[in-house]
Each structure stands twice: as structure tokens, then as C-alpha cells.
């Protein structure tokens, strides 16, 4: 899909307006979308689509995904959440996933940063090096 400059500018402006105090504000987002739909400017559907994509990327930056091989106990979880919040800001949401394929250890992904301490990753690197 070709996105023209106008669409890009408008959706970026909407994204900039959807923050209060550096955090995404659902109320503002809803009102922005409503007002756009009410005004119906040119290409407003494309603007909304692009805005949705920008929002999704923005949300991904504030979402931590913790993968463990087995269920992590609650003490570790709460410590992890606290540490991640200290590093990435208080509006970080954390999601825990159990993935037995990792064999052991933990893999944390926040936005595009990944910390990989899983056994599988180490085995793969060992395989590469040998």
C-alpha cells in the first residue's frame, strides 16, 4: 500500500496528540478517532489504518514478553516486573508465556530488545562455534 505524505503527517500528528504525561491515553485516542470519523477528511480510512499501525508499534514498545521453559514462581515474577518497570517506565505491561521448547532459562522481549538466557539459545551458539 502506498501511503502519501498527507496521510503520514496526519497520523503522526494524531499519535503525538494521544499522549498525556508521556503515556498513551485511551480516552484521548478514542476522542481523536471519533473526531476524525466525524470530520471525514480525505483518505481518512488510510489515516486510521496507519494510525492503528503506529499505535500498535508504540504499544509493543511498552509490552514485555517473558518466555520461560517452565512456570515461573510468583516471587521471581514480581521481582522481574519491578525491575523491568524501573528500566522501561511504569506503564510497562508484562506477559508471561510458558514455552517448553526453550529447554530452560528465560527470554525477555521488550519492544525490539531481547535478553536471551535460554538453554536453547546457548546450545545454538555452541553449535555455531564448534
Amino acid at each position, binding site marked *: 500500500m502506498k501511503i502519501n505524505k498527507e496521510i503520514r503527517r496526519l497520523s*503522526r500528528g494524531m499519535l503525538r496528540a494521544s499522549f498525556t504525561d508521556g503515556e498513551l491515553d485511551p480516552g484521548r485516542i478514542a476522542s481523536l478517532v471519533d473526531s476524525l470519523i466525524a470530520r471525514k477528511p480525505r483518505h481518512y480510512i488510510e489515516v486510521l489504518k496507519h494510525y492503528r499501525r503506529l499505535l500498535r508499534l508504540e504499544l509493543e514498545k511498552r509490552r514485555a514478553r517473558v518466555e520461560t521453559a517452565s512456570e515461573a514462581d510468583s516471587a521471581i515474577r514480581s521481582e522481574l516486573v519491578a525491575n523491568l518497570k524501573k528500566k522501561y517506565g511504569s506503564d510497562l505491561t508484562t506477559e508471561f508465556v510458558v514455552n517448553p521448547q526453550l529447554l530452560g532459562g528465560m527470554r525477555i*522481549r521488550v*519492544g525490539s*530488545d531481547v535478553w536471551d*538466557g535460554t538453554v536453547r539459545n546457548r546450545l545454538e551458539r555452541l553449535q555455531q562455534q564448534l
Partner: protein
Amino acid sequence: MSSILEEIETKIEGLKTSTTKSNVGVVRETGDGVARIEGLSDVMLNEMIEFPNGVFGLALNLEETEVGAILMGETTKVSEGDEAKTTGRLLSVPVGKALLGRVVNTLGQPLDDKGAIKTETFYPLEKIAPGVIKRRSVNQPVQTGIMAIDAMIPIGRGQRELIIGDRATGKTAIAIDTIISQARLNKAAEDQGDKNYRPLYCIYVAIGQKNSNVARAFAVLEKEGAMPYTTIISAPASDTATNQYLAPFAGAAMGEWFMDNGMDALIVFDDLSKHAVAYRQVSLVLKRPSGREAYPGDVFYLHSRLLERSARMAENFGGGSLTALPIIETQAFPLIFRQT
């Protein structure tokens, strides 16, 4: 036997404690040898990106939410949803004397069934050309062996001289003759034990040519005994546009090694018009804005930064040199069409 076991053990020990931090993105779109990746917030321009299955890419476009990367190797192995990782490395090729006598591809991998190339040094493809202080003026001739050229328009070591003309006018022949002439001079000096003669090593970069043409050039050089002083880099027409685009830079990197180590080298780019076409293709699939005849705006910069890397180094910087002979094919109308 036990030493091997110990070695493996220490390697495992070394890996045990490490948790790696990396920067990843997700492939959103792929095709035509190009991938668009979402994420990768820490990627740098021209950085290598690692895909699953051992495929590597080169980040060429850094956009607001996406990264456009050109793929090397088996591009069909990359699919949508794959995780791509930054590596923090620049694309580099093996350099050194082990490459002499070999036919290699853009990445320096052998194509001639003569076994692996053992080198310890790697040079990045893109390098900033030596500046004013490091250079000196050209002061030693390159004997092309063609009397008309050597008498009327002699070229020197560290010079760059364009060979331009229509198709089938003998541009490649001049370049091949020059390479053969260098090999003869090198051999003669070697036989006489002349320590003062500086041998001139040659690199022939074939971009977008027919494989048969490359094979013919190789056969001629082999027959004339020029191969021991020559490296052929082959990115034929069947190769990906990425490899054709990178081939001259790989050649320049290999030539620079000779220059940096106080030796002399000659590099032939055959030909840069096909290189520009490969770069045009890469740029168009990356959706870069295009200019006249759809060539991207930076095609001039592409060639000037490539040729600027040939230099004659000053005495206190090793005194090496890299001579470049770029070839350009002009597109004149064939006579048959002109008459109508």
C-alpha cells in the same frame, strides 16, 4: 583426544554464564531479494542483519517504523514473520595473498573447486578513501603492454583511467592485456631476482556478465600464466542484484589490502554500467526515489566513492598503490536502426 575434550569443555564453560542482549525485528514483507523489517530500533546503516537459516542481510533503508534490507545468500529461506537480529558487524570479505590465482564470488567464497581460501584478515566492503595527507602524486608507470597506450596516454600506479566505448569494441581486451602484461613483468622480475621491482597484483571484477565470458577471461589468463598474480571476482548476470552491487566494493577491499601493506595492485571493474543497473534494481525495490532513466540519485556518489579508493600512498604510509581501470559501455544506436 583429551585435549579436544578439554577444549570443548572450556568453550561450554565460557558460554554457560552469558546471557545475550540483542536487538530484533520481525520480517513484514519479503521479495525480490529485499526484506522489510519492523522493529530493529538499534540497527545502523550498512549493518549486517542475521535471519534464521544462516541468511544475512544488509540494512540500507532506515525508515520511521521499518528497515529495508537487501538479502544475501538464499533469499527464499526468509519468510514473513521471521525474527531478524542485528549483529553489530559490517559486511567484510577475506583479503590477502591467498586469494591470488582464485575465482571467488562477492563474499570471497571460492568458485573454482580449488579448496577453501585460508586467510586471517578481513576487510569491510565500505571504507573511506585515503585523504590528502596519505597520498602522493602518481610517479611510476603501469606498463599496459599496448604500445599506443604506453606511448601516448601512459597510466601510472595509483591512477584511475576510464575505458569507455560501445559494445564489442575491445574494452575488456585492453584490461585483460594489461593484466597479462603485468604478469609477464612480474615473472620476469622474479626470474631475474630483481628485488627493486614491485610486482603489480591484479583483480578482475566481472559484474553482470555472462558466465561464459568470465570463463573465457579465466581461460585466457590461465593460458598466459597470469592467474598466479590475479584474483577474479565473479558476480555474473545470474547472480542476485545484491551480489552484483557489492562485487566492486569487495574487489576494492581486496585491492586495498595490497595497498595498505605497501604493495601495488590493479583493479579492473568490468563493467560499471551493469553495476549501475544492479544498483538501480536494488534501489527501486527498496522504493527509493528515482531520477533520470530511473537511476537513483546517489549512483554518482556510488561510483565516485568506489573509484576514490584507488590511491598512491605516500612513502611514510607504506607507499602502496591501487590502480583502477573502470569500464563503461556506452549505448549507441546500432547502424541498422540509424539508417531508417
